[in-house]
């Protein structure tokens, strides 16, 4: 009986040990992603990002409701819906990069060492800041554009060489994009630390003219 009690005791303790060991190992996951582990500063930035996106969708919902009502009235009045169709076509031509485009925005000038991954990152940041149309030098960046490099260190956009110094022009809200690019800890600040000796200038523009995609999408 006493030896049975001993065996049972050891078994129970061993069982607890096993459970605790597994729990502890699991708790030591090298990296755990969870919103709960974000700092208040990161959460505040996430909230600002989400808010901005949601407001843009709400604005578009309001706009679409208005356009739908207008289209219905026009059709009911025998006027057809060409106006709405032309408006939609105009919007889509810009969105798809299929037309030359003009508007206010910013220019980011890069003079010195730079590479295709940094260019890709810069375009990503401009898009996140609401850029509606982007061009690198005289080459329009489209929905399927990719960035590369040639053997002689020219950068490429959709296989077209773009040599430095580079002018990355973006049509969109000048103020929003300017602040996004130049804020402390933003991408231009990071580039200045990584590409020492390379000059980065960001300027607001009241009127930019961007070309259409060189090869239309199919």
């Amino acid at each position: 009986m006493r030896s049975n009690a001993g065996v049972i005791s050891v078994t129970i303790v061993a069982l607890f040990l096993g459970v605790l060991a597994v729990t502890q190992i699991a708790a030591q996951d090298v990296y755990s992603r969870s919103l709960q582990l974000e700092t208040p500063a990161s959460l505040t930035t996430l909230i600002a990002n989400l808010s901005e996106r949601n407001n843009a969708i709400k604005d578009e919902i309001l706009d679409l409701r208005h356009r739908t009502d207008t289209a219905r009235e026009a059709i009911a009045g025998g006027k057809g819906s060409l106006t709405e169709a032309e408006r939609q076509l105009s919007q889509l031509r810009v969105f798809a990069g299929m037309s030359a485009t003009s508007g206010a925005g910013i220019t980011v000038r890069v003079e010195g060492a730079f590479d295709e991954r940094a260019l890709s990152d810069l375009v990503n940041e401009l898009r996140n800041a609401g850029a509606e149309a982007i061009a690198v030098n005289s080459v329009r960046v489209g929905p399927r554009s990719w960035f590369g490099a040639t053997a002689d260190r020219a950068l490429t956009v959709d296989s077209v060489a773009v040599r430095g110094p580079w002018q990355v022009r973006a049509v969109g809200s000048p103020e929003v994009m300017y602040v996004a690019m130049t804020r402390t800890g933003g991408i231009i600040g990071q580039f200045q630390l990584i590409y020492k000796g390379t000059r980065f200038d960001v300027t607001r523009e009241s009127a930019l003219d961007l070309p259409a995609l060189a090869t239309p999408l199919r």
Partner: protein
Amino acid sequence: MTTAPSPERTRLTHSLVLLLPAVLFGLLVSVQWRTQAERNELTVRYNTPLLDAAKTLQNEQNALKVTLAELRADLDQIQTSASTQSDAAKDLQSRIDGLKTVAGLNERAGDGVEIILDDARGAAAAKDVEKSICHNTDLTDIVNQAWRGGAEAIAINDERIVGSSSIYCVGSTIMVNGTLMSPPFKVLVIGPQNELLATYDDPTQLRDIKQRRDIYGLGFRVSRATGLHLPPYRGALNVRFATPK
């Protein structure tokens, strides 16, 4: 001739057998207790309302996208019926439909490749956490490579990639098209399979990701995929400053 161990020796042996697991037990309980206490200390008092706000906004975004999709479908229906009224209207509608397809505003089906990107799991990851986890730049590199390989449509965890798409990182949270995401990331690419596989297999491409996969266990797999269905882009077009010439 062997002699049986003395009762004292037997009791000592039994005690030692129980002592070791008891010490280990106590050690693990105390470490577990400390770890739990540290996690609670990390939850500062502002986190709870901020977390709630972030989750509420993401839920709101999901609902807004549904409304936006319904309104787009309504307007499309009105336009399509109206387009039968004249050749000019029909021609316009045809051009609109074509642009929506290339811009990523329509569903897309086809064959292509599937790429999985995930944080490393297991002992290899312990060498260097930074190198063993996914970053937003990994996703932008993967998307860049897909377009390079002739992709016609791309989606990351059901978010269609279009001309205004951004892949952003705040803290350890990644946002695609302004939508919160976490690994694993499933990147679906519709396009010419052989060309796409070749571009991902090219040893001179995506060297950083491949190196981190081999040394630090970063999850990165590319495979052929058939019968893919990609959703349309569900966000705002947001064309306010740009006008076509």
